[in-house]
């Protein structure tokens, strides 16, 4: 960090804007949350600046660990689903003609020009008990009572997948676009069947795109609040909801901050470990002469 600041003098003005943006909107708020997590909630719900570790002790209670586990489970599941759905989409787009590709990318992003909340309510109107899907299958006589999708774990999962899919498609798409097709032919030529070509040549070469895309969606999913709030109903707890509850319902900002800090730190450590792992894998040779 010291090194970074010292070198700042050499940075161009454009980097200063970026740096200012990073500090005011990312680093500073995080430091405030971190500071608050060591404070005490006063009787009136305000913050009393007395150092304590009690909030962290509480954050690691079984109840919250269970919520954390459930959140990880759902986010991981949704990320994997996004990968399974998103990869073929990205593959198709990367191989399509320029016109089809542009069209496809636009179709992928058109929903995102609609307000986020509206889109979530769109899901409600399709999957709700009186929604399009249930009404249709009930009319067809396939079932007497509606299938409960909303206000279940599945509802949250569905919302996460729907909302984050494009953010996974794009990085994978750009990795696939850079993938040299002659490598595929070379693999086939050397005796690899389609599956072997996929696992031994294509995947290793777009691994970076997959990893970045997965982090891109997994991290915000972990902190997601609106989707579980609207689609999850009262009985499904999600880490993001618990945090917001602490801040606004319970008026316990220090404890909410502790939960938020644990989540952020956990994710940061995970990303850092991954980066270290990547570096070691690439090895010192990657800096060698070309």
């Amino acid at each position, binding site marked *: 960090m010291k090194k970074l600041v010292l070198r700042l003098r050499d940075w161009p003005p454009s980097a200063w804007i970026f740096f200012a943006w990073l500090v005011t909107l990312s680093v500073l708020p995080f430091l405030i949350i971190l500071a608050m997590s060591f404070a005490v909630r006063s009787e009136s719900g305000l913050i009393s600046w007395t150092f304590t570790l009690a909030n962290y002790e509480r954050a690691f209670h079984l109840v919250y660990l269970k919520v954390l586990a459930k959140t990880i489970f759902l986010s991981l599941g949704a990320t994997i689903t996004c990968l399974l759905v998103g990869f073929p989409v990205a593959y198709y787009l990367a191989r399509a003609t320029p016109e089809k590709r542009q069209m496809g990318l636009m179709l992928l992003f058109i929903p995102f020009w609609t307000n986020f909340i509206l889109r979530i309510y769109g899901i409600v109107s399709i999957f709700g008990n009186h929604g399009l899907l249930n009404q249709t299958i009930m009319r067809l006589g396939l079932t007497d009572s509606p299938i409960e999708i909303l206000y279940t774990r599945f509802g949250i999962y569905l919302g996460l997948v729907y909302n984050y899919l494009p953010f996974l498609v794009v990085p994978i798409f750009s990795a696939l676009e850079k993938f040299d097709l*002659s*490598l595929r032919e*070379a693999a086939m*030529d*050397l005796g690899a069947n389609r599956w072997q070509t996929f696992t*031994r040549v294509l995947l290793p070469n777009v*691994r970076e795109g997959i990893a970045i895309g997965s982090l891109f969606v997994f991290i915000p999913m972990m902190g997601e609040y609106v989707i579980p709030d609207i689609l999850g109903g009262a009985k499904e707890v999600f880490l993001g909801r618990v945090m917001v509850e602490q801040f606004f319902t319970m008026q316990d900002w220090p404890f909410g901050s502790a939960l938020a800090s644990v989540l952020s730190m956990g994710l940061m450590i995970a990303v850092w470990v991954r980066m270290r792992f990547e570096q070691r894998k690439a090895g010192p*040779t990657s800096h060698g002469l*070309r």
Partner: protein
Amino acid sequence: MYELRCESLEKSFGSFALQPLDLAIQPGEFFSLLGPSGCGKTTVLRLLGGFEQPTGGRIMLGDRDITRLQPHKRNIHTVFQRYALFPHLSVFENVAFSLRLKGLAKTEIQRRVDEIMNLTEIGTLADRRIHQLSGGQSQRVALARALVDQPAVLLLDEPFSALDPSLRVRVREEMRTICKKVGATFILVTHDQEEALQLSDRLAVMKDGRCLQVGTPKAIYEDPSDAFVASFIGPVNEIRGELAENKPGEWTVSSAMGTFKVRKNGIALPRNVSMLLRPEKMRLLRQRSNTQENLLEGEIQDLTYLGSRTEYTIKTHDNVFKVSEAELERQKKRLLNRRDRVFLTWKTEDAILLPQSAPK
């Protein structure tokens, strides 16, 4: 070792069509497909490799019809134009790729990879990453990777075009040595006639989806079947004229430049013929010589000294000739300079006679 045969092999896509192609490539032969871009040579290679399906005809490897076989089921490997080495694997793993797929034992893989890497002289590069290799090294890795599981046929798709020109000749020589050691059948696709001449046992010259001539480098160079082949395989001077038999067995070509004696080989020729002369088969004289049968007077317009030989551009009264003379030849005479008057001559048997092609 199997013979590779194309039987009326056809392929059309868009406006391009490969005309029915019949080729028989002998086991262990180094065969080249030579032609300008768009002539269909790469299409033939892709058909042989299994990356494209023909619209007609068959490909036979020995007695086996491999026309519809997937690339990974053919005992044919390719060295790709840009080598297509796997960037996520080390040099060793690139070379070992096909053996790993076959599920061979570790010790066996190690042995065979070591063997081929020593043969191609890349033994010291085993742990390198692909992006650390030079062009020449990459090419050898690609060659080793394709040769390691002993394919019946190796396809080479312009393997020298990504190399520095200064490297090419040396790498070609090395390639030839390796090929002879391995003993597989090699098929090279190239647009570089020098490359094809240097490497091939036999070659096929292609143009516009058609195979014009198949033969040894010598046969194609000295006895081309067609004006395109003649000019593609090397520079050539052309004299157009009418063929006539003056006395039985004595033929001449009369053109605007004069009448020249020719030797007619067996083939039937129309009245309008092209007489083709290679620059190195023509000689320059300072004085008119009465002993020479074929003589043209001209002026040296330009000369280029190239060490082992000198190339002249000679302007006659209505034509321009390229003449290439070996340096030894040149030293015997007084030095020639620009704007000197000279006489051009050639041996009667060195003129190539072909039917006249449509004027360009």
